[in-house]
């Protein structure tokens, strides 16, 4: 087999900006990771590499002309080889598992596949890489099993190739909640330690310890700041102290930027708010919490932390009849509000343009699948392109078809609560520095 002269330098394609998505040219806030519009299309710069060496040219001709007399070939003509740039285009559309295997193909491929620029290009490719991770207690006492299901097969009838993930930590006597999932990295809370784990490439890292032990740990959240290309973990804790005999409560916020070795204190959380559901949701470069306006009010508001400026803003909710019981989440890369104002359905509101209160739309009204308790756990996790909603109802997972109003039971085992089930977008991005 003749060595290909078209492969070129190992890092050529990987370092060339014209090949990798130029992330600075996309809108700062809402990088729609599933949009194919952001891909670098084949440009006229490729026609330069297409002037093939004459041997390849002949091979194309030979292949075509002999196609009708394939049977009479004694020696097969040399197959056309692709320039490295085109190989990159194909590789970026493969699932992570295949790419890990294909690092064994040759040195330039191994280099490419572990290049962070390629990881970014790969990340933005398709929604085919979306998975559902669910965790449940195994029959072995105190152990939990993490399973991963490709979302494409969850929505179709195709049999799921569920994969068990190898949890990197020793299972303790409780389930370690997954507090965030962003660009292929999961943020896991193990007592007072925070871990970042990419299960697709089997890399994990432990964050520096959180020094303040005198306080009550409230919440950790996880997100990505596009402007500095960095991952941030946000920790909240309540700090109670006494001033002039009065008990005062502050919500102290610290941020850890992956790659640094400390937690930095930032502005306190707008102090008169409490948490309804303490897990912050990452969307559009911000982390969002649904909170009560103050200690006495039952009015809720959404507070958002911008990961670039590390400052807060209030997001106005949509006009709904009386969101007595609501949660927030992220669907289709947009901030969503799930509200129950009566006892028989959940409204899914979606903010099409982040921060613009006029852009709230009511996406779906999901009826209750059966009689549920007064404050049931109904949590939409994902919406497919054809308007099917994956949701967790109490401790079970269903797909609601909004077009015909039917439910499908997924028979996927998982623990109770949102920390047991996460949508995960597989990637090559490593949390290790």
């Amino acid at each position, binding site marked *: 087999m003749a060595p290909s002269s078209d492969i070129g330098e190992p890092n050529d394609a990987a370092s060339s900006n014209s090949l990798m998505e130029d992330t600075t040219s996309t809108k700062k806030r809402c990088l729609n990771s599933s949009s194919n519009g952001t891909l670098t299309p*084949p440009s006229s710069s490729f026609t330069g590499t297409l002037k093939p060496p004459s041997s390849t040219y002949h091979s194309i001709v030979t292949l075509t002309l002999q196609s009708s007399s394939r049977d009479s070939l004694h020696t097969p003509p040399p197959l*056309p080889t*692709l320039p490295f740039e085109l190989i990159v285009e194909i590789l970026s559309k493969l699932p992570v598992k295949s790419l890990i295997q294909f690092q064994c193909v040759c040195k330039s491929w191994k280099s490419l596949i572990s290049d962070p620029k390629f990881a970014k290009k790969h990340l933005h490719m398709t929604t085919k890489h979306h998975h559902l991770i669910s965790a449940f207690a195994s029959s072995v006492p105190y152990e939990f099993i993490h399973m991963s299901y490709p979302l494409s097969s969850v929505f179709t009838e195709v049999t799921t190739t569920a994969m068990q993930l190898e949890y990197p930590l020793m299972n303790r006597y409780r389930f370690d909640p997954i507090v965030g999932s962003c660009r292929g990295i999961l943020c896991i809370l193990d007592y007072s330690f925070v871990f970042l784990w990419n299960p697709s490439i089997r890399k994990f890292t432990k964050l520096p310890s959180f020094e303040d032990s005198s306080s009550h740990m409230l919440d950790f959240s996880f997100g990505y700041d596009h402007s500095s290309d960095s991952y941030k973990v946000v920790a909240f804790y309540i700090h109670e102290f006494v001033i002039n005999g009065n008990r005062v409560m502050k919500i102290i916020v610290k941020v850890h930027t992956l790659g640094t070795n400390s937690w930095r204190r930032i502005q306190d959380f707008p102090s008169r708010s409490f948490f309804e559901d303490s897990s912050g949701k990452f969307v559009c470069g911000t982390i969002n919490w649904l909170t009560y306006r103050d200690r006495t009010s039952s009015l809720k508001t959404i507070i958002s932390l911008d990961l670039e400026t590390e400052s807060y803003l209030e997001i106005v909710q949509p006009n709904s009849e009386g969101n007595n019981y609501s949660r927030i989440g992220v669907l289709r890369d947009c901030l969503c509000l799930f509200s129950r104002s009566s006892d028989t359905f959940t409204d899914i509101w979606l903010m099409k343009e982040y921060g613009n209160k006029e852009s709230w739309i009511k996406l779906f009204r999901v009826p209750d699948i059966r009689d549920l308790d007064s404050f049931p756990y109904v949590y939409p996790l994902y919406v497919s392109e054809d308007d099917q909603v994956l949701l967790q109802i109490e401790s079970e997972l269903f797909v609601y078809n909004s077009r015909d109003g039917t439910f499908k039971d997924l028979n996927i085992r998982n623990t109770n609560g949102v920390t047991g089930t996460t949508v995960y977008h597989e990637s090559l991005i490593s949390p290790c520095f």
Partner: protein
Amino acid sequence: MAQEASSSTSSKTISLKTGDGEIFEIEASAAKQMKTVQRLIDDLGDDITIPLHNVFSKELPKIIEYYKKDITGEITKDFEAEFVKDLNDDEVKVLFLAANYLDANKLFEFLSQNIADRLESKSVEYVRKYFGVENDFTPEEESKLREERAWSFRGIKEDE
């Protein structure tokens, strides 16, 4: 995505001549989707036969078929599945190269995804042959890499 053709090209067809000398007709609006063709039309005018040295009579009709569907907005997942159903891996590769040469973005994206889908369950050896890539690892290096990645190799089809 159908382009709104200007009145002078709305029902015009362009003649394309393949590298092996055959001539095919294509609607001007479909030709617009192939940037290389459009550039040649801009340079040479739309009245003459456009020469495409690197595309041949086996591939061009298939490409034209794709873009005929595209301009009427009829490209569906079913159509795309049908389109590649009877093509073997090498035929798809040649078609992909042609789409790249023609700078036909939509077809290029579709075919690159299709090739990726085909390669997903293939072995490392198959992939090397397919791309004409030489293994420049020593046997020791390669076996070490495979050992480190043993978990990713579970469930692979035997080489065809």
